[in-house]
């Protein structure tokens, strides 16, 4: 039987990372993926990643996918697509369906990196056409170039719900509302703020009563829920929508490991049924490794590091490297992983209400319930300053592991320091030149350039803009505040696009001077 040193199942972030580390150390590696395109979820993730350079921060997910794929192929990794692994049998034998044939392969080591599947919730009418998973929406718009619907209601305020809502807006869909039964936004505040400033209303402590329609979705009714998640009568709200998108969490897709006979556990902290594994990702069956969401649902950034660790561990298991190299590399990667697992959204903080930042600043409650920071809250944050001339205003209010803004500024105006989750502060002594690199570099689109003294009575605000059509210089429209409300007339003074901005355009709008602290989005008059 055809045998490989390492067979990887799943060409997503963790699988490709493992394949690369294995191949670097001399292993003969093959990667099977059932999809037509490699990259797993990375190819649907069109936003810029968080973290620091080592986590590929400020690079868009699909670009990371392309980079990983290129690196893997340069190292001689064979990536076989449209290849469905149908079973994992004894003696580390895999059966793979490719076209109209099944193939038998054996691996001396096997890495299962099959990722996660979406969870679902039920409500009246949930089986109607038009009710889809958030992953389905991403797949349709970002892989197939088709809008999943015209007017959409999103259920779920975790990062997936927030990111996909923004992506829906980017491809021209209307998002009627973002709804979550939880009392607080579950994902990053900056993701929520991006969606809110486009005018999407947030309904926390609300959930879907029913999807309406006979043959497909024509509307939806939501209602407020109490602390026990029971509907409060009389709070129903109706929306005319053609699509309802569900983003209510993920579960590891660990079925292959169960078939293989790996010891499993039900671990709610990891998202469900996961294999019991050691720090290198090795399961109860020697030589079968796991990495990424299949071993516990997290982010693509951590999946890549877990993949690297498992790939190196497989190399050691097969005798290509010594235990010293494994241990050394493990420590490095563990540090990177711990870097990502810090801050308010660290795994141990899941579901907890955090009321103050690491700096001791009260967290914006409006951000957690409405999706945007209120007027009377914004001045608390160290990135929000006032001064003469052009300067950055960083509306970054939660401790998340991310620091590209610090590296972006050629004048070193922005400082995060050595602690990656710290809120960015403005160095008053450095002089901002208005280059906008920080605006484009911020993965959360939370940095704005503000000039309060542009001309008498008027100031300018430079905002990140990732929509089409791109406004024209001189065009007149409106400034929208953080909640998406139209607050003033605005004129486009400048539209900057550059390769280094990576599709984040910088739109400079002129607004009345009392609006420079409020206008955070631009819309042409309709």
């Amino acid at each position, binding site marked *: 039987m055809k045998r490989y040193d390492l067979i990887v199942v799943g060409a997503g972030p963790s699988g490709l990372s493992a394949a690369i580390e294995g191949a670097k150390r001399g292993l003969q590696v093959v990667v099977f993926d059932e999809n037509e395109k490699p990259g797993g979820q990375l190819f649907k993730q069109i936003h810029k990643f968080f973290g620091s350079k080592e986590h590929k921060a400020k690079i868009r997910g699909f670009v990371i996918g392309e980079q990983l794929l290129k690196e893997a192929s340069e190292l001689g990794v064979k990536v076989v697509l449209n290849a469905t692994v149908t079973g994992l049998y*004894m003696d580390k034998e895999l059966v793979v369906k490719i076209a109209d044939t099944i193939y038998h392969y054996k691996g001396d080591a096997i890495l299962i990196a099959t990722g996660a599947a979406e969870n679902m919730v039920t409500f009246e009418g949930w089986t109607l056409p038009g009710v889809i998973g958030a992953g389905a929406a991403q797949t349709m718009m970002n892989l197939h170039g088709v809008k999943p619907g015209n007017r959409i209601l999103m259920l779920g305020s975790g990062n997936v719900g927030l990111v996909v809502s923004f992506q829906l807006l980017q491809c021209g869909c209307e998002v009627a509302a973002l709804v979550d039964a939880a009392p607080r936004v579950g994902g990053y505040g900056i993701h929520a703020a991006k969606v809110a400033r486009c005018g999407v209303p947030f309904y926390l402590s609300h959930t879907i009563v029913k999807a309406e329609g006979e043959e497909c979705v024509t509307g939806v009714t939501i209602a407020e829920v109490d602390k026990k998640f029971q509907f409060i009568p009389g709070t129903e709200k109706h929306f005319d929508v053609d699509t309802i998108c569900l983003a209510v969490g993920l579960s590891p897709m660990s079925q292959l490991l169960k078939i*293989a006979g790996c010891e499993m556990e039900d671990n709610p902290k990891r998202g469900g049924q996961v294999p019991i594994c050691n720090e290198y990702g090795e399961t109860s069956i020697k030589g079968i490794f796991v990495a990424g969401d299949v071993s516990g649902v997290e982010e693509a950034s951590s999946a890549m590091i877990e993949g690297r660790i498992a790939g190196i561990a497989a190399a050691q298991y097969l005798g290509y490297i010594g235990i010293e190299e494994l241990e050394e590399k493990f420590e490095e990667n563990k540090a990177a992983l711990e870097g990502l697992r810090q801050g308010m959204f660290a795994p141990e903080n899941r579901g907890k209400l955090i009321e103050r930042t690491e700096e001791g600043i009260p967290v914006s409650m409006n951000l957690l319930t409405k999706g945007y920071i209120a007027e009377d809250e914004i001045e608390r944050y160290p990135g929000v300053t006032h001064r003469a001339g052009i300067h950055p205003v960083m509306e970054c209010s939660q401790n998340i592991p991310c620091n590209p803004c610090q590296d972006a500024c050629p004048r070193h105006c922005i400082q995060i320091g050595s602690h990656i989750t710290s809120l960015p502060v403005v160095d008053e002594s450095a002089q901002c030149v208005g280059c906008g690199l920080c605006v484009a570099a911020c993965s959360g689109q939370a940095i704005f350039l503000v000039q309060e003294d542009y001309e008498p009575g008027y100031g300018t605000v430079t905002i990140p803009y990732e929509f089409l059509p791109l406004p024209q210089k001189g065009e007149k429209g409106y400034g929208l505040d953080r909640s998406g409300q139209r607050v003033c007339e605005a004129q486009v003074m400048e539209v900057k696009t550059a390769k280094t901005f990576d599709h984040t355009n910088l739109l400079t709008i002129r607004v009345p001077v009392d609006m420079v602290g409020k206008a955070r989005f631009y819309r042409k008059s309709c």
Partner: protein
Amino acid sequence: MCNTAEVIIVGSGVIGCAAAYYLAKQGVSVLVLERDQSIGNGGSSRNGGGVRQSGRDPRELPLAMYAVEHMWPKLSEELEIDVEYHKQGNLRLGKTERHMEILQGLTERAAACGLDVHMIDGAEVRKINPYLSDEVIGASWCATDGHANPLLTTLGYYRKARALGVRFCTEEEVVAIQKIRGKARRIITAKAVYEGETIIVAAGYESRAIASTVGIDIPMRKELIEALVTEAEPKMFAQMLGTADADFYGHQTDHGSFVFGGASGMESVNKDNGNMAVSSITAPCICRGIMKYIPKLADAKIVRTWAGYEDLCIDGVPVISSVEEVPGLILACAFTGHGFGISPVVGKLLSQMALGEETFLDIREFRYDRFQAAI
């Protein structure tokens, strides 16, 4: 909770559940101990659902004929659950002259016992089932054979027995049976001790180890065999199918899916990971077998494959027997892959045996001490 009952049954397979039901119906207190977490998780949930008389050993035939005539037709009504019983015949197919000889032999022996079974040619076969390929040159045909849903039959007996007050305890692995004052009476599990007037061991292959704790050995072995199921297909045919070569057997269920069992030929040496693992080569082999007989199923999608142990008796028929040297002990095991079709009648016989009544069928052929050395 009281750990005693008049009858304790070891094993919650279809035989154990049926016996429990027929006993409870007579007002007997019954306790069923199951090693697994789920009821009927052995062969009862893994077999092909055949309710056949043809092809059986003549010793077993009276049981099968009784079940088909008197029990299966009324079982759904009795258990208040649709066990999906269909009495629409069994075709045992042949493709070669050698096959036809095998079928002829089986048919003659069964007919001699009074079963209405006869040989038919290829054209007649395709008249009964137009989906069968031209490779099929003939078959034995028994119009009163059929199939049922083993999952619902097992759980149907369980549900009804439970409703009648039978106590079922799962994850209770029997470690030993103990004799008290000359009678089998006490059952030791990993967690507790139980006592009963009568003990019925109906635990598949594991019955061997359990019986050995009171010095009884049943000459049997186990074999891991496999089956598969397709997606739902439009209704095609209602007969149970088998072959002279035994390369596959199966039927279309009420759901529309086809359940097929079969063999790779490696069964006697198959290994297991402790999890009843399927092998990578059996399902493909079963598919190749099926496609030769029913080419139209080539596009049908397989959605699941599974494996299960058969408890194979050295002489091919089960042990259904009181053990006089261990008073109070009754064995019902080594069903050799034909237990499901006769489970209602075996359950009823066991209830009579446990009550010390004379059985309504002669079961001397199934005695535990019938086994002899070759010379």
